[in-house]
């Protein structure tokens, strides 16, 4: 980079951000810079240091944390293949191989793997400079290679490549209901905060992120907390491998979600809200911005909403940048504040000490969507289906070995057998519930039910066909967690680092009894002592397999010996190479 170029970047960066310099927007600035220059050039960092009064190390540590940000060099086309297990089953490795061969020697392109990109119902998929491309086929790969080799700007690529389908395979009462902008909001204004909370309470709505905390309770706690400001955050960091129903909601039901946020703001007197949109869903940014703008123009956002003096609320969208941990609500808040996404100590919880230390409601996209439904149709309408502890219905994202992947809405209490049958997964040996961190349910247990009482899910439902290797799936999950552990606490940072190598011994049929014991011990330690849910649930599928499917491990064992596997010939290879080299 010439001094002139550097100077230009420095000035440009300063001008773009100096006006409203706000260090909580650091990540947003970095995302923008990355997008603009295909990396974060050093002069841009210097400019940010100057206008935000941050140290170089503080800025670089944020860059280093997010996998979509790079400070090393500009690469014009950064290609990330989604490495979710469903993408692999759909043949992503061959696609990646094909593109790698086609682009061999091309310095403009970099190819790597990333975690689930949320297109499991239309995999294999990839991201190129953050834009998603699904339904990869050899011919689409060849098209992409040709475009890159001829240096066509991404903006000029055919739109057909970037088409994303939003497939609803089964609707129940929530999806079937159309959104009538402002209907629910008007109702909420009529009711006022106390009755809104009462309605939510009667509806039995529980958070759809996975933990299932009662929404009314969360909102009440936030409302009761004494504070100067309160915030509403929509958690659209849908990172659980295999889930994509939030993507569908944001694409087709954005008004409902935004209205749910607005109702939350009304209830707790919040003036600002955020949609934390995962970087992989960058293609939703512009449509969502348009939705927000439209609602502002309709008087549904901004000041004096629907003419109510003092009801002021607006929403901004923050983009994530490739960090699964940011789906954890306290890590998400750190990220919203422009920092590395490291979970916070709890208590205190975000509901009393969240964004900027103020009470903050963090709700899943689907939860906010349901809020709008409830306010539109009433608590009774919502709660009359479902089970005792799990009222109403929920959305699940079905992918993997089934004929009809897509989003399904089911009343709680539905059996797995029913779901598997509906989606055409007749050959399933098991279902992976709730993503890589979830539980593996074998076919023999398909009578179990979808509900908080039995099998909770964040929305991911991956069907595992009989032809699939469970060990391969575990290795894929281990790769995922090694990639996504934030590194804060000991068991998660180190445990997740060690597991892939151990599993590899089983894959190579070299493992021993010692290795098996070690797998169990590491999983147990991570489960018992990790700081947050990522670490404690990372070994869930592994533990399930150890308990339910011991045969997949015994098949990978060379002996039941207490001695660990050790490959002597691998360990002496370097010496032989050295001593056989004549050039010394």
């Amino acid at each position, binding site marked *: 980079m010439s001094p002139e170029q550097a100077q230009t970047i420095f000035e440009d960066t300063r001008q773009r951000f100096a006006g409203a310099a706000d260090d909580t927007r650091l990540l947003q600035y970095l995302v923008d810079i990355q997008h603009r220059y295909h990396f974060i050039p050093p002069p841009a960092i210097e400019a940010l240091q100057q206008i935000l009064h941050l*140290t*170089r*190390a*503080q800025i*670089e*540590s944020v860059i*280093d*944390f997010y*996998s979509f940000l790079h400070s090393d060099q500009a690469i014009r086309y950064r290609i990330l293949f989604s490495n979710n297990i469903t993408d692999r089953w759909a043949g992503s490795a061959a696609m990646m191989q094909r593109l790698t061969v086609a682009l061999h020697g091309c310095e403009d392109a970099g190819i790597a793997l990333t975690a689930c990109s949320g297109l499991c119902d239309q995999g294999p998929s990839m991201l190129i400079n953050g834009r998603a491309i699904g339904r990869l086929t050899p011919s689409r790969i060849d098209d992409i290679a040709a475009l890159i080799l001829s240096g066509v700007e991404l903006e000029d690529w055919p739109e057909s490549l970037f088409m994303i389908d939003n497939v609803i395979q089964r609707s129940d009462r929530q999806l079937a209901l159309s959104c009538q902008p402002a209907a629910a909001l008007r109702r909420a204004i009529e009711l006022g905060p106390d009755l809104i909370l009462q309605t939510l309470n009667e509806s039995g709505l529980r958070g759809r992120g996975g933990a299932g905390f009662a929404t009314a309770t969360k909102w009440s706690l936030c409302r009761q907390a004494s504070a100067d400001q309160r915030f509403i955050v929509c958690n659209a960091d849908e990172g659980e491998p295999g889930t994509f129903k939030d993507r569908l909601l944001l694409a087709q039901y954005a008004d409902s979600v935004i209205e749910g946020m607005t109702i939350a703001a009304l209830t707790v007197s919040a003036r600002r809200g955020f949609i934390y949109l995962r970087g992989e869903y960058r293609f939703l940014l512009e449509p969502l911005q348009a939705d927000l703008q439209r609602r502002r123009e309709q008087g549904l956002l901004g000041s004096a909403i629907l003419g109510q003096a003092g009801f002021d609320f607006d929403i901004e969208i923050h983009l994530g940048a490739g*960090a699964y941990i940011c789906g954890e609500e306290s890590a998400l808040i750190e990220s919203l504040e422009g920092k*590395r996404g490291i979970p916070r*100590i*709890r*208590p205190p919880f975000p509901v009393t000490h969240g964004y900027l230390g103020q009470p903050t409601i963090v709700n899943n996209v689907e939860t906010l969507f349901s809020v709008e439904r409830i306010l539109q149709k009433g608590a009774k309408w919502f709660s009359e289906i479902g089970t005792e502890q799990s009222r109403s219905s929920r959305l699940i994202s079905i992918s993997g070995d089934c004929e009809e992947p897509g989003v399904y809405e089911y009343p709680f209490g539905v059996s797995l057998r029913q779901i598997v049958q509906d989606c055409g997964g007749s050959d399933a040996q098991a279902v992976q519930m709730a993503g890589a961190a979830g539980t593996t349910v074998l076919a023999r247990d398909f009578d179990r039910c979808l509900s908080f009482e039995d099998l909770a899910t964040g929305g991911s439902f991956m069907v595992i066909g009989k032809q699939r290797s469970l060990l391969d799936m575990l290795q894929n999950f281990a790769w995922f967690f*090694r*990639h*996504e*552990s*934030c*590194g*804060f*606490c*000991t*068991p998660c*940072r*180190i*445990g*997740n*680092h*060690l597991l892939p*190598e151990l599993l590899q011994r089983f894959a190579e049929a070299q493992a021993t009894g010692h290795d098996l014991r*070690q797998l169990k*011990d*590491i999983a*147990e*330690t991570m489960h*018992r*002592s*990790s*700081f947050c849910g990522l670490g404690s649930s990372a070994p869930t599928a592994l533990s399930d397999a150890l308990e339910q499917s011991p045969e997949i491990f015994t098949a990978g064992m060379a002996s039941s010996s207490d001695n660990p596997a050790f490959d002597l010939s691998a360990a002496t290879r370097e010496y032989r190479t050295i001593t056989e080299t004549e050039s010394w």
Partner: protein
Amino acid sequence: MASFSIDQQPIEFEPGQTILQAAMAAGVYIPHLCFHPQFSAHGSCRVCMVRIDGRTASACTAPAAAGLEVENLSDDLQALRRDILQMLFVEGNHLCPSCEQSGACHLQSVAEFCELLMADLPFQYPRRMVDASHPDWVLDFTRCIHCELCVKASREVDGKSVFSLTGRGFDTRLVINAPDGLLVNSEFASTDRAASVCPVGVFLPKHQGFKTPIGQRKYDRHSIEQITEE
């Protein structure tokens, strides 16, 4: 005054204290590494795991509350601590024999207290440069346990931001805020609190190593459970 119990022993506490703070005030030792009384709790090392009314949690982050029954030195908790400690030992280069921090190292002493005889996990032997650029201090990054005490001390006591953690996952590492990343070109001063708060052997004063004879080192005289951190 309200109280709870640790291993059946009653512990009085002030409102707002965590279990670890209350225990330390009462002179009851709960093994810990990343916590230092001068700084806010961090919660990352997980060594202070206790069982509170049957639920496992870190004592440094769990608020004290009246009537809690806390289990601390039971066999299975000590075993859990050994499992956590051994992860730290395989992560870095903790070669006590040649480390001048031996005898004054928290990691070493806590592990000895917890009766960790060996780390039965694959050793990683990270390769990282030693930073000896500063005239008075050497930093050996391969021993860092990511407790961020130096980060906090620099920020909160020294009024600077010399240190940060960067990277993610297993690649998390300590870095120095300087244009070239070297200590000598940072705002670090030899007397900074950041240098003396390290519980392991990352910060080494130059030309001083091994000046304290064996037998007179911090944990030679008293084992770790008898010493309150200053």
